[in-house]
């Protein structure tokens, strides 16, 4: 087995360990019916052990891949996103050691699983580094950022638990709507994973010729049946489905098609869950958080930002500027990725000031933490895939 294969297998091991741990955490929390926390403690121990085993395998994946490629595996969409899933679990383990909260694991691990699954939809073969990335700063800058984002994301998980407990689901409210929207968007990611996996297992491929936004002829390969066609498209594959609509040249109909399939599959899945359970997705999870200590969740929310914010400042701004000065001759160029790192940073600065200066604790803080996670995900996914710039990896 080559080092690269070993690395891929270790990632599977980690994935499966996290999957099992999720259910054990869920059982631990659910078993705590009378709120005595005795069985929760016992099963929580089993679950955290599984998580740590998974995390060690995950680290194994990371360093064996580093060995195989000769550079820190943080250079494309697959690698960066996988690393984010890993640091998310790492951040959780850190805060678990401080606060012993199985309910947090029940939320963090499924999200980490989704993120790793999402990452695996991108090309995962080891790829060489372009000149701009050939620097020790790749490892220094990107690893600091990804650790910071993993820790910051824990605050959103704590916030979500907080909200699941305090939001009254029996009454129609903005809070209830948005909480359900969070669940729905997580299921959409699952929709993306399912549709991508299905079409790649069935080897779907359709080629088209089109005219790009500079007016040049170009070709594109669809790996999903084309719902949208590129500007002035001509099918090159015989039995390809005829797109339902043609998009203007600035819109990448291939990506739009992928997003649309994810929406279709995710939405069907969402309604299936609701029909079978006969309640909102949030309501399915609410019983699990019945015995949660709200003050503790608020504390975890704040604590992870206290750890994550300085790390993020260091990695995403200071190290980023140093490297940009070396590689691109200017420390700041208003590239979309840079701008979104600045936005993330400003957002958490606002969080700190609102909390410290305006007393925004508890529920308000919880919502802010969730929004912070949304911004991080936006920077990771949308800015890489939609907004083109120097940092576009995929």
């Amino acid at each position: 087995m080559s080092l690269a294969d070993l690395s891929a297998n270790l990632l599977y091991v980690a994935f499966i360990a996290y999957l099992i741990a999720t259910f054990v955490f869920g059982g631990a929390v659910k078993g705590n019916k009378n709120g005595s926390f005795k069985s929760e403690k016992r099963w929580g121990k089993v679950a955290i052990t599984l998580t740590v085993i998974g995390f060690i395998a995950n680290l194994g994946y990371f360093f064996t891949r580093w060995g195989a490629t000769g550079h820190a595996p943080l250079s494309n969409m697959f690698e960066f996103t996988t690393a984010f899933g890993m640091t998310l679990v790492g951040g959780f383990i850190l805060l678990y050691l401080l606060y012993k909260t199985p309910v947090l694991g029940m939320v963090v691990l499924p999200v980490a699983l989704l993120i790793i699954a999402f990452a695996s939809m991108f090309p995962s073969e080891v790829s060489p580094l372009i000149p701009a990335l050939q620097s020790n700063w790749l490892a220094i800058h990107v690893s600091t950022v990804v650790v910071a984002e993993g820790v910051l994301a824990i605050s959103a998980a704590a916030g979500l638990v907080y909200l699941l407990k305090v939001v009254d689901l029996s009454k129609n409210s903005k809070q209830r709507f948005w909480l359900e929207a969070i669940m729905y968007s997580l299921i959409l990611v699952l929709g993306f994973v399912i549709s991508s996996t299905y079409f790649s297992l069935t080897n779907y491929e359709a080629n088209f010729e089109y005219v790009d936004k500079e007016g040049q002829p170009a070709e594109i390969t669809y790996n999903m049946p084309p719902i949208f066609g590129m500007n002035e498209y001509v099918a090159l594959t015989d039995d390809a489905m005829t797109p339902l609509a043609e998009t203007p040249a600035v819109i990448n109909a291939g990506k739009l098609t992928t997003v649309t399939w994810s929406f279709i599959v995710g939405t069907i899945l969402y309604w299936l869950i609701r029909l079978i359970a006969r309640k909102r997705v949030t309501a399915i999870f609410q019983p699990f958080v019945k015995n949660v200590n709200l003050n503790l969740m608020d504390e975890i929310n704040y604590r992870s930002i206290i750890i994550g914010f300085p790390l993020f400042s260091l990695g995403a701004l200071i190290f980023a500027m140093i490297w940009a000065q070396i590689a691109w001759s200017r420390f700041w160029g208003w590239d979309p990725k840079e701008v979104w790192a600045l936005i993330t940073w400003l957002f958490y600065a606002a969080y700190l000031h609102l909390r410290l200066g305006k007393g925004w604790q508890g529920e308000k803080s919880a919502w802010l933490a969730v929004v912070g996670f949304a911004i991080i995900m936006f920077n990771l996914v949308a800015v890489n895939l939609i907004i083109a710039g120097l940092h576009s990896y995929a």
Partner: protein
Amino acid sequence: MEKVQCQCGHVNPPGTDLCESCGRSLTEKEQNNTLADMRYEGTARRSQTYNKSIVDKIWNFFSSVKIGVSIIVVLLVAASIGTILPQQAYVPANTEATIKAYYADVYGVPGQIYHALGFHDLYSSFWFIALVGMLAISLIVASLDRFVPLYRSLKNQRVLRHVSFMNKQRIYGKGPGNEDTMKKAEAKLKELKYNVSTDKNGLLAEKGRFSRWGPYVNHIGLIIFLFGVMLRMIPGFYVDETLWIREGETRAIPDAPGYFIESQNFELETYTGEDEEAVFGEAIERVGNVAKNYQTDVVLYQKPEDSLPGATDDMEVVDEYPIRVNQPLKFDGYAVYQMDFRLDELKSMTFALTDKETEESFGELTIDLINPDEFYELENGATVELLGYYPDFDGFDNGEPQTATPLPNNPGFLVEMTTPETPEGETSFILIQETIEPFGENQYKLSFQNVETRDVSGLTIRKDKTLPILGLGGLIFMIGVAQGMYFNHRRFWIQQQEDGTVILAGHTNKNWFGLKKDLDQVSEFASLPAYQDQQEETREQDDKKGAELT
């Protein structure tokens, strides 16, 4: 407004809520509070004291956290707008008109609107810079407004606080004590690394006061950073030049007087996917060629101070260096970066002067395409004169040949050929793959032999004297953040009254859990009276009230 004298004798600045020295409540509002407002030690912040003149109003505006956060949020939203479409620096157009046309052509009406609103260059727009300026002012004003009185108050605090101060602290306890309670408490607190000072029947234990300065230190870091960014607008602090240099050329480095650079070779390498790169085979197959290295091998020269202007023969070699991406050449505060390249620019063309019929040749001539000679002497008395040279020929205007750029992309030559047989000379206009004979059929022609090419490197020259200032700002920011976030300020006040009753109070700016842990240790050792967390009690009462209502 007047200064306020406390019953204890201390004179406080106007607007003080809690006496700096003993902690008595000085205002009615504060007297009615069940818990003292300890955020800024009850000090007189300018913004809370004066609100009359226009200066007061401006000061109060910028010192408000609400306004500060609003500025941050507006800035964050504004910044995001600039990422909807690419900024002008990233579009393939460089004049005002072509940029405007680009947004209209590629993005249609939304693109036109985006451009019309100035969002294509959002980050250098007046209003965006003004927002950053407001952020800076807010940082300065808010920090001064809080730091100065807080510093005064913590410096003036005394050991013995008034009872009314102590019982309004969140952590408060009162009860009988032993004879050695005070001694033991002092010993234990010292063991826990508190600074303990005593006065008569009381003690003040304090730890981590410096963490109170954390926010101000980090704000100073940010202000220094913004100041550094502003400095670069002053000439001399900042150089940003582009230099295109051909292989074999030596050129003066723009904005770096006395320095010259020679390009010996430019190299572009791509990954092969073979041998030790075999792991990358799959990726290379999927995406095609991947660049591995861009490199310009250069020699850096310097002219001596006393050298005559224009003289280039006395230059001294300073350095020989391969400039690569991520490895700029550095000298004397400057850095030269590998940024761009053009492969295979035409360097020179070689022709032979031949008789069209007999193919008899008078030999060859080579025309340098950057600095062509005007006159060429060939064998047997034949000559060629270059009447006109058009490096980037793009058609005729009024019969005159035109050149689009000074770069030799499509060279055109207007030549006069003279031989012993045609002493009057024959005129010919030569292009690649085409010859025009404007004055009728010629006997001789210049037949193309070969061409030499070379690569051109696009280098960027930077000098940025503000970098140390920016680095200092960043460092101070990080220190301040760590100082404020990872440490906290804890204080205990303990007094024993004549009858043996001990009263104690505790305060921290954050992490009450840690404070209580310390206090528990001291209590156990020195048998202090039990304490309560008065805020948690009020909160629990509130919770209960809330539950009754719903």
